[in-house]
C-alpha cells in the first residue's frame, strides 16, 4: 500500500513540476522582497507586459548559491536577475552575464547618466547590467530628538562634531543613548564606513585607509560611539528600533527606514548624513538588471528590462516601493508623504555643496564581501574591543593591500585614479 502511495505521490509531484513548465520569463530578484513590495511588483509594475513574467524573490545568500550552481551545471532556469551592484559583481567576474551594450547605448541616448551606466560595466569592457533603481543612505530622526539639537546646528548641514554633541545631550537628558547604526549581521554598516565615514574624514576609501586623517576619524568615531545605543550591533534595519522608540537618530538605507517614515510621516525627519573635515561623504546604491549567460528566454528578459526602465514604470516603481529612477523621470507631486520625505532627503544629500560622492567598489569580483570585512573588522577591533588605533589600521591595511593586489582593482572615486591595483598609502 505504501508503495502505491509513493508512486501516486511521485506522479503527483511530477504533475506539479510539469504543470507550470511552459515558457514564462523568470525574473529572480534580491530586491523588493517584502510581501507588500513583491505584490506591488507583480500586480502593478510588471502588469503592462504582454508576455507573462514570473517574479521570484530570494535572499542574497541563496541567490549567490543558486546562480553559482546554475553556472556550474550549465543549465539555466532564470532569464533575468535583479540585484544590487555588489551582488552582481561576483557573477560578472565569472563571465556569467550576457553583454547588454545595445540596450545601454539606447538608454544613454535617452538620458541615463553616463556615470551610472558605467557602474554597470563592473570594470569590464562590456555592459554587465542595466541600472534599474537607485537609492542611497540618509539619516532619520524622531522629532522628539530635535529639541536636543545643539544650538546653531542646521539639521541639513550637520557635522560630526555636532552629531556627537547632540548624542551627548540626548544621553544626559533622557538617560539613554539615542543614536543608532545598523551594525548587525544583516545591517549595512560596512557601507557606512566606505561611503560616509572614510570619505568624510579622509576624502578617500582605500588610499588613505591608515592615514593620520583616518586615525583622527576613528578617534572621533569612538567618541560618537559612546553615545550610540549599544544594541546597534544587533540592528539590521533601523526602522525597527526607530519605531520601537529605542533609537531617535539613525543612519540607514532609505529602503530600511521606509517602514518607519511611511507609517508615521509626522513623527520623523529625514536629512543627509553629517560632514567631516573633508566634506559630506555619500554613496549611491544601485540595483541592476542582468541576463545570465544561457538564459532560456533572453529576448523576453530584454523586453522586461526595456519595460522596467521606461520613465512611466520608473515613476510607478518609486511610488510603490520607494526606490528612485535611474532615468530622467520626474516624480509626481502627489506621492505618499513618507516617500516624498525620503526623496527630499536623497535630493538634499546629492545637492549638498560639500558632498563627496563615493562610488560602489568596482573590480573586486567575488571578493566584495571580504572588502566589507576589512572595514567591519577594523570597526570591531578599534571601537568595540578598544584596541590601539594605529596597530589595527596597520594590520588591516595589510589585508586591504593584499585584497587589492589579488583582485587588481584600480581606484574608484573618491580615491584618485590609479593605473595598477589601488594602493593603500
Amino acid at each position, binding site marked *: 500500500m505504501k508503495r502505491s502511495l509513493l508512486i501516486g505521490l511521485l506522479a503527483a509531484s511530477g504533475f506539479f513540476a510539469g504543470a507550470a513548465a511552459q515558457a514564462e520569463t523568470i525574473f529572480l530578484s534580491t530586491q523588493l522582497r517584502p510581501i507588500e513590495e513583491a505584490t506591488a511588483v507583480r500586480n502593478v509594475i510588471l502588469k503592462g507586459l504582454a508576455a507573462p513574467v514570473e517574479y*521570484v524573490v530570494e535572499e542574497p545568500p*541563496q541567490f549567490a548559491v*543558486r546562480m*553559482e550552481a546554475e553556472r556550474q551545471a550549465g543549465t539555466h532556469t532564470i532569464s533575468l536577475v535583479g540585484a544590487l551592484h555588489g551582488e552582481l559583481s561576483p557573477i560578472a567576474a565569472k563571465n556569467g552575464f550576457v553583454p547588454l551594450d545595445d540596450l545601454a547605448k539606447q538608454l544613454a541616448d535617452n538620458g541615463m547618466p553616463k556615470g551610472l551606466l558605467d557602474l554597470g560595466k563592473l570594470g569590464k569592457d562590456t555592459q554587465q547590467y542595466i541600472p534599474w533603481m537607485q537609492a542611497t543612505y540618509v539619516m532619520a530622526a524622531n522629532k522628539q530628538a530635535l529639541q536636543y539639537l545643539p544650538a546653531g546646528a542646521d539639521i541639513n548641514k550637520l557635522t560630526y562634531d555636532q552629531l556627537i554633541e547632540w548624542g551627548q545631550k540626548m544621553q544626559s537628558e533622557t538617560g539613554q543613548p539615542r543614536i543608532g547604526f545598523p551594525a548587525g549581521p544583516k545591517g549595512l554598516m560596512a557601507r557606512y564606513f566606505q561611503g560616509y565615514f572614510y570619505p568624510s574624514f579622509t576624502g578617500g576609501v582605500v588610499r588613505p585607509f591608515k592615514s593620520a586623517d583616518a586615525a583622527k576619524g576613528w578617534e572621533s568615531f569612538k567618541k560618537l560611539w559612546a553615545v550610540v545605543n549599544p544594541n546597534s550591533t544587533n540592528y539590521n534595519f533601523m526602522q525597527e528600533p526607530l519605531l520601537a522608540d529605542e533609537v531617535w537618530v539613525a543612519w540607514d538605507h532609505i529602503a530600511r527606514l521606509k517602514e518607519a517614515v511611511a507609517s508615521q510621516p509626522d513623527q520623523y525627519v529625514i536629512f543627509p548624513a553629517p560632514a567631516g573635515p573633508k566634506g559630506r561623504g555619500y554613496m549611491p546604491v544601485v540595483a541592476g538588471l542582468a541576463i545570465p549567460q544561457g538564459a532560456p528566454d533572453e529576448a523576453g528578459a530584454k523586453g522586461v528590462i526595456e519595460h522596467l526602465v521606461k520613465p512611466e514604470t520608473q515613476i510607478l516603481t518609486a511610488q510603490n516601493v520607494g526606490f528612485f529612477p535611474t532615468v530622467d523621470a520626474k516624480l509626481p507631486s502627489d506621492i505618499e508623504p513618507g516617500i516624498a520625505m525620503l526623496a527630499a532627503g536623497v535630493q538634499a544629500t546629492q545637492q549638498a555643496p560639500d558632498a563627496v560622492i563615493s562610488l560602489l567598489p568596482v573590480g573586486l569580483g567575488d571578493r566584495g564581501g571580504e572588502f566589507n570585512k576589512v572595514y567591519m573588522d577594523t570597526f570591531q577591533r578599534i571601537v568595540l574591543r578598544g584596541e590601539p588605533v594605529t596597530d589595527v589600521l596597520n594590520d588591516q591595511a595589510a589585508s586591504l593591500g593584499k585584497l587589492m593586489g589579488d583582485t587588481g582593482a584600480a581606484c574608484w572615486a573618491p580615491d584618485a585614479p590609479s593605473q595598477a591595483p589601488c594602493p593603500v598609502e
Partner: protein
Amino acid sequence: MSTAARPSSFGSARAVLLWSGIAVLCAWVLVPIYLVALGAFGGRTGVYQWPKTIFPAGISFEPFLLFLKTEGVAGAFMNSLGAAAVTVILSVLIGAPAGYALARYNFRGKDGYRLLVLLTRAFPLAILALPLTVSFIRIGLYDTVIGVGLVHTVLALPFAALVTQGIFLGVPRELEEAAWVFGCSRPQAFFRIVAPLALPGLAATAVFAFVISWNEVFAASVLTVRHRTLTAYLLTVLAESPLHYRFAGGLLLILPSVIFIFAVRRYLFAIWGISSK
C-alpha cells in the same frame, strides 16, 4: 500508557508541588507562543508599543489575510505538503529497515553506520547546498518537489533510524521468534507480528520527518524556483518585512506543525518502545 500513573497515595503537599511544577513548565512553553500570537494579531502598532501589555490590543487579521491572498500561497502550501510527504515516506521506508537492523542484529560496522547517520546532522546543510544544487540541476531534480523531499530525507533519516530502532527494541523478540516457530517466514513474522506493534511508533517517526521537512528553509529555497515550499516562500519574503508580518508569518508556519503533533500525540511517546507491559 497509563500504567505509570499511580494511585495518589502521596501527600497533598506533594500533589501541590507536582502540579505547580507541571503548571510552571507548561507556562514556560506556552507564554512565548502566546507572545508570538500577540505579535501576529497586534497589528502594526502593537509590536512597537512601550511598555508592552500582555493583553491583546487592536486585534488585526490583516497580515494573515494578505499572506493568504498573496499569489502562490495555495500552490506553495501544496508543495510543502508534497515535500513533507516525500520526506515522511522515504524516511520511514529507508529508515525503518535500518532501525530494525540496528535493533535486532549485531554486525560489523554497526558503530560506523551509526556515525554515518549522525554525521548528516553534524554538518551544516547550507554549506552542502552548492554541490547538491549542481548535481540536482544535472539530474533534473532541480525545482521539483521530489528534489526538496530527497534533501529533507537526508535530514530526517537519522531521526527515523534512531527512533525506529527504539521501537523495534520495544517489540519483544520472543513474539517474533514464536511466530517463526509457528511456521511464519521471517518477512511474514515481521509484517504480521512486529509491524502492527510498531505502527504507533512509526507514526511518531512520521511526525519528526514531517516537522523537519516543514520547517526547513535554506535547501528548499535554493533548490526551487517556481515550486517553492510554503516555508521557503514565506521566509524569503519575511526577512525584511515589517515585524508584525514576521510574527504573522511565524505563527502561520507554526500552526500546521502543532496541529500535526496534536493529531499524533497519542503515538508520540510510544517511540522508545511500547511502554512497559
